[in-house]
């Protein structure tokens, strides 16, 4: 859009966008504000834009009454491990599907893709039986992590991304006596950073926010993730809205940090300069 675009075009567009921003931001704002005031105020039907009395008491109650720190650690641990495994395996498989020639490449890829058509709910019960009854992994990190070590969606994403990287670089590296794994590790991965960043954010967020699977396979209070923990806390302490808001704020915070830390990768194409366009 050029600078001279008229105000009657900009004006309505800005209004629509502002409205959108309000819809998105108000619940978050409310959550944060609610976590700093006492419970009766945060449950009120007439919400206040700012608390009359600022208080960190809700946070104290949240952390005192629950195993919140343990839940946060569990969520962090599970999400971090899954992010690393997904980055590694999805990029490895994506690279193979995009750039290596091997018999059955297309067939295997389509079989993998077709599994994306199956709704997660369909596989949930067999998966549960497998993990809990057969492998006997109930209430362990392994149970939460194992089924999500790599997702087909991520493999697909990485394959698409890797396809855009110039093949001549791989050939150059091969001539430069680089091993096949070396090509992946030293050439492909650094160039795939923007794609990996996107994948990291989505994977981390998805698993941080994951609720149903951790709920199914965990039993003890110690093994709960923050989302499962928050839900159980809500049922147990249904009147303490302040503490619930504090918990929700604590649960959402890492997502904001992650996004702002990695957002530049969305904007930056790292292959500029590799190949003349």
């Amino acid at each position, binding site marked *: 859009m050029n600078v001279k675009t008229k105000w009657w075009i900009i004006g309505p567009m800005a209004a629509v966008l502002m409205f959108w921003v309000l819809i998105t931001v108000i619940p978050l704002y409310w959550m944060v504000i609610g976590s700093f005031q006492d419970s009766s105020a945060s449950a009120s039907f007439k919400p206040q834009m700012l608390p009359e009395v600022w208080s960190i008491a809700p946070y104290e109650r949240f952390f005192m009454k629950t195993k919140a720190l343990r839940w946060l650690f569990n969520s962090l641990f599970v999400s971090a491990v899954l992010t690393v495994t997904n980055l590694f395996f999805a990029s490895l498989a994506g690279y193979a599907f995009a750039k290596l020639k091997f018999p059955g490449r*297309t067939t295997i890829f389509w079989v993998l893709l077709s599994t994306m058509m199956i709704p997660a709910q369909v596989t949930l019960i067999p998966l549960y039986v497998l993990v809990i009854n057969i492998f006997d992994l109930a209430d362990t990190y392994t149970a939460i992590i194992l089924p999500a070590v790599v997702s087909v969606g991520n493999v697909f994403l990485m394959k698409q991304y890797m396809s855009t990287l*110039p093949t*001549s*670089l791989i*050939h*150059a*590296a*091969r*001539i*430069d*006596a*680089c*091993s096949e794994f*070396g090509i992946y590790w030293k*050439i492909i991965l*650094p*160039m795939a950073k923007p794609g990996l960043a996107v994948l990291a954010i989505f994977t981390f967020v998805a698993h941080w926010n994951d609720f149903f699977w951790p709920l199914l396979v965990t039993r003890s209070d110690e093994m709960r993730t923050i989302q499962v923990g928050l839900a159980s806390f809500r049922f147990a302490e249904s009147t303490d809205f302040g503490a619930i808001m504090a918990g929700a704020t604590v649960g959402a915070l890492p997502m904001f940090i992650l996004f702002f830390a990695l957002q530049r990768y969305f904007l930056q194409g*790292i*292959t*500029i*300069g*590799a*190949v*003349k366009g």
Partner: protein
Amino acid sequence: MARVEFRNVVKIYEDEKRGRFTAVADSSFVIEDREFVVFVGPSGCGKTTSLRMIAGLERQTSGDILIGDRVVNNLHPKDRDIAMVFQDYALYPHMTVKENLSFGLRNLKRPKDEIERKVAEVANIIGLTGMLDRKPRELSGGQRQRVALGRAIVRDPQVFLFDEPLSNLDAKLRVQMRVELAELHKRLGATIVYVTHDQVEAMTLGERIVVMNEGRIQQIASPTELYNHPQNMFVAGFIGSPPMNFMDARIENGQAHMEGVSFSLGDETARLLKSYEGRNVVLGIRPEHIYGDDFVPALAKSFTVQAQVQVIENLGAENLLYFRVGGRMVTARVKPETEARIGQLKTFVFDASKLHFFDPATEQRIGT
């Protein structure tokens, strides 16, 4: 350094889209030690595939490839002792110039001081000593090209492979790099295999040129030989700019008859064309061997054609005049002082000693 040999090399692609496709058909040749050989031809002629088979990036369907005295069919690219410069440079974008240059040596686990020394040497050769810490995106097109060149030189390979290395540069830089490449070849004394679709590059750089078309080698010869004795109409038409003119002629009683003009062939040529008596041939002549009637040098044998000038292209040092003989458009490269107007009926003088004859069915050269 080393020679490169192809023995009956065939490359067939089995492609889901195109089906069976012969990229290189039964190719045999020898590139001598320290020779600069250029593969030239239109796109899809199999020249790049040939180069990639030497590099080991593609496996031939049948036949043997030798580098030095070794059959390299089953050798990985890194074990073939070759280096390649790619059309798009293929510089590693996340590495500095220095890291790009040293990447191969580091992979070969060479000692650190040796790597340092070689990188410094090569940086000096390619004139980028002050830019070793820059990333490729901070360099101009010409500088990137030099880094790609440096990355090949630093490996000190037996054979250099160039895949259209100048095609991404602008015209001025291309001429400059062409001269530098020729100098580099002298300096390194290396065996160089160079692929291009640009016949000017081929003529100026190659000691010998391999002309390819549709997967087949058309002719292997020195630039002069290619220019003066093209083996078939494809080579004749591909080498030289503007390309050689072709005209249809009928041979009868030691004379060649074209539309509107007949001329005597002379004893020697008549002997050559004896078996074509009463048949058609294709007559070829280069544009510089046709003269306007106002500037004719002393010619041993010549004939004249009267034709209407259709188009005039003024190139400064020379003019190109286009006119029709029979159904074919013919180009004459004449002195700029030659008087000509579009539509003018002009007499053109053909140097009959510079004629080429081709069989219209096989398109092969008649005689030597």
